[in-house]
């Protein structure tokens, strides 16, 4: 029987698979993607597309803020807020 995987674990797995995270700087849920140089502007595009498709969320341009996308905790909180507002397309 498979266990349900939480949002943060899904996000962490996506980051670890697609971007380089130095072995000596483990990815804390509050690690800043931008300040640590983990994702660049193309990476932001990939992360936004992943969140939209994986979590069924429609993301508006005005929501593309570091406050919403700069760490695992920030993205997870953003997804929770979007679920609360009913912007979720599918789950």
């Amino acid at each position, binding site marked *: 029987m498979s266990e349900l995987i939480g949002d943060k674990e899904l996000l962490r797995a996506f980051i670890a698979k697609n971007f380089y995270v130095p072995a000596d700087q483990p990815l804390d849920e509050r690690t800043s993607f*931008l300040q640590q*140089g983990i994702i*660049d*502007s*193309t990476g*932001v*595009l*990939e992360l*936004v*597309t992943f969140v939209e498709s994986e979590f069924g969320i429609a993301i508006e*341009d*005005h929501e*593309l*803020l*570091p406050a919403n*996308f700069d760490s695992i905790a920030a993205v997870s909180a953003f997804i929770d807020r979007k679920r609360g507002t009913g912007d979720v397309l599918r789950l």
Partner: protein
Amino acid sequence: MTFSASDVRFERTRALQEIDRITTSLHDIVRVQLRRRGVVVGLSGGIDSSVVAALCARAFGAERVLGLYMNEAESSEDTVRLARLVGDHLGVPTVDEPLSPLLAAAGCYARRDAAIQRLVPEYGADWRCKVVLPSVVETERLRVFLLIVQSPHGDEIRLRMPPDVYAEVIAATSFKQRMRKMLEYFHADRLGYAVGGTPNLLEYDQGFFVKNGDGAADVKPIAHLYKTQVYQLAELLGIPDEIRLRPPTTDTYSLPQSQEEFYFSLPYDRMDACLYARDHDVPLAQVGEALGLSEAQVERVFRDIDAKRAAARYLHAPPLLVT
């Protein structure tokens, strides 16, 4: 001492000395170190290639500089006309190398259009496009690339680009810079010349070039100069007014595109000042006061400078050897 945007500028005497210093250095690099007889320069009608060609003409004599005109179907009319203006003004030998047949054969336009059609199915050869980034000065938003397409009727559509579409559009468009470089090396090999690269400091530092495209060269005579300083040298070298007064453009997409839309946060003079300030630890408040920006805006520009510098590491890296 208070910071001012004019701190980037050379004093006149220093600018004249810089022209002499580059001229001497070019001779040493090309003739002595590389053992080449002259230099090939792609002329775009822009300020950078004009100044590089003028410096090379001073270093080797106009007859030892070959200017290439490499316009293609989507080049602006100014590119063709102003490039010829520089070639004629400097009196250098020139060769026309129309790029469109080579680009079409490589699939530059078709591959790009096919990628765009995944997002805009009705997009066709009679449409026009460009890729833009939101301004870091005006908004805190993350810089996510947008595609702007214009139908033959003039209707404009603006869409966020999925990563695969973005990467493929950029990869296909980069054929333009790489094909130009291939032709420059053809003529360089034929004549025993070196290839001159035309990036200024802003472009070189921030990675505003295509790897193995306009980023490739044997010598880069102005890669240590802020764009502001390149304009100063252009004036002293007698580059025609029309070229010096033309706003910088990428001239890469079929819709007109400024360099600020695609890459830099600010127009070049203020971008130069920010880069200078970033590297000289000028306090945010002083930079803001000098440039008419808030501290938060300057901080965002500085962050953008750092991010681009980090992304440019790959672009600057030579082929790495296993040791």
